[in-house]
């Protein structure tokens, strides 16, 4: 029977040297106390951020024109949510990695119809609004081409949209019921009623904020606030948090790809970044069994620094 040759990056020599006393319980206790103390010091000195969440109400009061413009984009299907694709709807091309269209294959599992969910259904929920009810009926019973004509006329005129005395003002006479719908939705939002309406799908109790968050994310307002807080996608985005805090620094590599081509220029950027990170994660996992990769530590020789006392005492080798 022949012995296998020693593979330095796979095998380890049997230790035949000496041993030193080791009190594992004492070590663990001291480590726990030191970490607890460090945590306490950092918490006392630096605290933690807690910037209050924005609401549809606060957004529509702070920037009613942005709200009305976003509402129009939900109604005419030009918002990000309206044209997202899977898992929300079939209105957009899902991202893909080469031939792999993973999101599309999984399909629409969280159905979102932006016009219905964000504009028409909330307006229908408003009680005792006969004029609005009539306008909603007119809109719903109109042909698709008529609706498109109204929406295009409103969109064209909304370049000069104003907000005067609590009303959204757009100078157009060809937009049918759309001006009333957008204005009433803005009024509803400013009252806070839209915040609640977007959460009511599951009844009284709910913890699902998918709809209001998608609506907010379609605005300019949320992105502008995030950029002010150095949270923009080109500012290392979601690994940061408000204020001067380290945030999720461990996501630096994931966020890094979003800063460089082709990831920050491709329509499939998210899918490509995830693909790269999955490959890198698998490589990290499989380092021990990948020839070449597992030799890197031996070639880098950083271990000479770690075990410097051992090599000094043994005169260079084990």
């Amino acid at each position, binding site marked *: 029977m022949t012995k*296998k*040759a*020693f593979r*330095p990056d*796979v*095998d*380890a020599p049997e*230790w035949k*040297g000496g*041993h*030193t*006393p*080791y*009190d*594992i319980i004492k070590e663990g206790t001291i*480590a726990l106390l*030191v*970490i607890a103390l*460090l*945590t306490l010091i*950092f*918490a006392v000195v630096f*605290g*933690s951020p*807690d910037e209050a*969440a924005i609401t549809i109400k606060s957004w529509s009061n702070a920037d009613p024109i942005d709200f009305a413009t976003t509402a129009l984009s939900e109604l005419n299907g030009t918002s990000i949510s309206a044209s*997202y694709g*899977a898992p929300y709807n079939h209105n957009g091309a*899902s991202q893909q990695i080469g031939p792999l269209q993973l*999101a599309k*294959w*999984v399909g629409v*599992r969280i159905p979102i119809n932006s016009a219905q969910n964000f504009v028409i259904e909330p307006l229908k929920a408003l009680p005792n609004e006969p004029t609005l009810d009539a306008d909603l009926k007119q809109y719903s019973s109109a042909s698709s081409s008529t609706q498109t004509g109204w929406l295009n006329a409103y969109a064209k005129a909304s370049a000069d949209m104003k907000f005067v005395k609590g009303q959204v003002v757009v100078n157009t006479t060809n937009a049918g019921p759309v001006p009333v719908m957008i204005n009433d939705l803005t009024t509803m939002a400013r009252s806070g009623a839209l915040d609640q309406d977007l959460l009511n799908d599951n009844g009284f109790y*709910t*913890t*699902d904020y998918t709809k209001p*968050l*998608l609506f*907010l994310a379609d605005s300019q307002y*949320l992105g502008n606030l995030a950029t002010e*807080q150095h949270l923009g*996608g080109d500012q290392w*985005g*979601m690994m940061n*948090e408000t204020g001067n805090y*380290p945030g999720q*620094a*461990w996501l630096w590599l994931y966020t890094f790809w979003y800063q460089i081509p082709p990831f920050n220029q491709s329509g499939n950027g*998210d899918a490509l*970044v995830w693909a790269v990170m999955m490959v890198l994660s698998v490589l990290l996992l499989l380092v*021990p069994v990948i020839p070449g990769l*597992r030799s890197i*530590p031996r070639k880098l020789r950083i271990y000479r620094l*770690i*075990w410097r006392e*051992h*090599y000094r005492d043994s005169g*260079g*080798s*084990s």
Partner: protein
Amino acid sequence: MSNAEIDRQWTTRLRRRVEGKLPPEKVLPDTQPSYVASWIYVFGVATLASLGVVIFTGCVLALRGPQWWHGSQYGHFVNSLHLWSVEIFFFTMVIHLWGKFAMAAWRGGRTLTWMTGVVTFLASIATAFTGYASQSNFDSQWITTQAKDGINATGAGAYFNVLNLGQMLMWHIVLLPIAAVVLTALHVILVRIKGVVPPFEDDVKPAAQKVAVGE
């Protein structure tokens, strides 16, 4: 009952297997190889200690519910403790990971020890992310609306909806912590079974070495 019958019992076989693999002197050793003499070894136990503080501060936060820390100065302070224990946890874990990489700590049949460590690291990232997603403040609004695009692109967003606060909170305080703790326990058990990887035998030609501990 005969001895043979007792020997065949599942309980007996499991106990003997555990005793053989992990005798008390390996579980609670009182000596260690003399090469274990570097500050880098501190970061393994520091990671475990940080995890303990993370879990403890998270449990204190859980006592009064997810909204408590927004309206209470005590709650906010506990949140600060939780945040910084997480930061220290990742700091120590990343140094531990790269230290073990530099030592090629998978050698000598320790591949599974390395792998459980890497998976624990990835599970910890997911745990921390769901924590940021379930803060119910501006940060969580921004982080989730940005992160959804990446997760949706993989197809996973259809089932792992980062905009669903309830789902994120449950993953953060139940499912992922269980995964992280179980993986950590497995990792530590493997470390205790296999011991700390010995140094490279420098200046000795591979052909002249004998495989003492291998895969």
